[in-house]
């Protein structure tokens, strides 16, 4: 007690600050940093979850870089990112831009766009999976067949399956992005638009010169947010391809699904941890790059 009494006010403040910070620090230490460190450690080991862990050095990483499935999966992950992010960005901006100008049923329409975001990804994935089935149960193919157009193999195809799975994932994320875009649009001061109207500037110029530049922070936020989302895509893929996860022929398998299968189907924890470390590095690099772009402003 005496020790505490001898402290200056400033030191006491610091002591109290740390006393309150201790809980989140402990929480992060135990829940975040300890498992992260442990995962990095396991990536240098061989462990089947049951037996002892044995040290194998860089074996897991060598196996990883020599594994053609890994590179295929790595490519898929970036296809999800490079296809999903721009497509969802453009669609959500177009919707938000026009929704912002609409007064008629504005709240109702906004709710309709937001609804998929609140729906369980698993339920949505299964409904879309049935939409994509061949005749006689698939909605899309039944429609095509009734028009006399040949069926399309949506999921049982190495080329169509990935976009087919990406579509509902993009759709599900739209609602959130639209809301963020609309908030961004509302935040742009009306005076700029008034000045532009007085100068007689065209709508396109207003869009290019005022709206988009001033939306940059919003756009960066959405890009970072949705990039991380697409890099970690899992539930849509897993639920739409459950019997053959990530199939056919690994054409839809993202990195997270490969990690899951290695860890909890093959029980090869070391190899799964090595994949996790690679995913961590990818996410880190992508996020740092995007933060750099943000700083340029």
């Amino acid at each position, binding site marked *: 007690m005496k020790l505490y009494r001898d402290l200056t006010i400033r030191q006491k403040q610091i002591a109290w600050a740390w006393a309150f910070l201790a809980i989140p620090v402990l929480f992060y230490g135990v829940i975040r940093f300890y498992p992260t460190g442990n995962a990095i450690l396991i990536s240098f080991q*061989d462990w*089947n*979850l*049951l*037996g002892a862990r044995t040290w194998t050095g860089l074996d897991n990483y060598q196996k990883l870089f020599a594994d053609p499935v890994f590179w295929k999966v790595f490519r898929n992950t970036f296809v999800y990112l490079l296809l999903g992010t721009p497509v969802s960005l453009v669609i959500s901006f177009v919707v938000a831009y026009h929704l912002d100008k609409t007064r008629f049923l504005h709240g109702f329409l906004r709710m309709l766009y937001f609804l998929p975001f609140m729906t369980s990804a698993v339920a949505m994935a299964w409904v879309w*999976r*049935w939409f994509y*089935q*061949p*005749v*006689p*149960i698939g909605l899309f*193919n039944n429609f095509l*067949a009734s028009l*006399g157009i*040949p*069926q399309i193999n949506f*999921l*049982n*195809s*190495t080329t169509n399956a990935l976009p087919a799975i990406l579509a509902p994932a993009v759709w599900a994320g739209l609602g959130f992005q639209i809301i963020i875009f609309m908030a961004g649009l509302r935040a742009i001061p009306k005076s700029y638009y008034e000045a532009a109207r007085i100068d007689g500037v065209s709508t396109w110029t207003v869009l290019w010169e005022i709206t988009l530049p001033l939306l940059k922070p919003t756009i960066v936020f959405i890009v970072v947010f949705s990039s991380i989302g697409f890099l970690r895509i899992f539930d849509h893929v897993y639920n739409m391809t459950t*019997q*053959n996860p990530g*199939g*056919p*022929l690994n054409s839809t398998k993202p990195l997270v699904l490969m990690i899951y*299968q290695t860890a*909890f*189907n*093959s*029980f090869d924890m070391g190899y799964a941890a090595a994949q996790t470390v690679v995913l961590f590095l990818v996410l880190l690099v992508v996020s740092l790059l995007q933060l750099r772009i943000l700083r340029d402003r």
Partner: protein
Amino acid sequence: MKIKRLRALALASATSVAALAGSVANAVEIEYWQYFFDARVTAMEQLIEGFEAANPDITVKMTHFPYADYRTKVAAAIPAGEGPDVVQLFYGWLNDYVEAELIQPLPADVFPADRIDEEFFPMVQAMKEGDQYWALPTAVRSLALFYNERLMEEAGVAPPTTLDELMSAAAAMTKRDGAGNITQVGMTAGMTAQDHHWWREGLVRQMGGEPYLDDYKTVNYNTEAGLKALEFYTNMFMGDEPVTAIGFMDEPQAAFKAGRAGMHIDGSFRIGALADIRGLKWGVTELPANAEGERSNYSSYWVNAITTKAEGEKYDAAVKFMDYVTSDEAMQIWLDVVGELPAKPSVGMTEKNANDPVFGPFIRGLEYAHTTKFADESGQRQLMVEMVERMQLQGMSAADSLAQAAEAEQKLLDAYYTK
């Protein structure tokens, strides 16, 4: 007045707690774990009831988990001293559990190896090391051909007994719409379901091959027989007149349940799920034989084992429980409730069971069944799935795809056994 009543209540609850504690002290409680499957849980509840009636000083507490988490939870719990005393495992996992010292061998005085060798189906001997058994099943499973009676009648065909009859019956039951799209399949197909077992232990052997050598450590299906088996299988959906389609109605069993598939190969565990489908009239027959009349089947089983956690009086209680769940009585209950076949011929091959219209084909199938020793069942199944996909989606020849699958599976087996 109020205080008095309160005091009485407190006294009453204190005595009842004491009484409860007293009865617990006398009884041994052991824990039993299995994965969740409705019929299995019901059957085990009946078994526990019967066991507790015969052993009033032992109580058994059953815990079950969804199948997806089962293996992880068991693996995490036993080393922590939290898990079960008696645990249910898939036969293919046994090696891992023995190596990790999670289970202990069954005592030779209650489970003498020579008696078990004699009484159980021979495939159970995979659980034996030296003259001790590590684990024993209550029930075993095999495959058979389910058929839709209404569709058979409509097409005027009989349940097939040979592979040729299978193909012609399937062709008769296949329906197409005007554009040639299949709207009803004669036979379901999909390596993701049970077909990979049928292909490995059924078709490859019936074409004159031996799918694996060296106690399932060496892949041996990249042969003439393997190629014939693969061609027979893929011909069902890639031939000139396909009788089925991969992914038809999403899943093979879904198509059969919906009455849109004439025939469907599945395990005995499907019986329970099909029994309650309204409007579906189905029958079962043995897997079709080849032209020489040879049949071959696949069987698998789940075993019960005593974990290293069980010690002292819990160990004794666990041994008694193991003895009960592998008794003839338990096997009959398991057959009646779950539909899985008794692990002893003496129970399974009774006149009544072997001639049962539903269980009979499965039980007769056990006589010529083989049990694949998997290193990584889902991994090995995936290779079969991809073998077919390479042919169907990428146009690879059967021979090349077969060779690629054999090479990949050998690599997987080598990695597992050299560990």
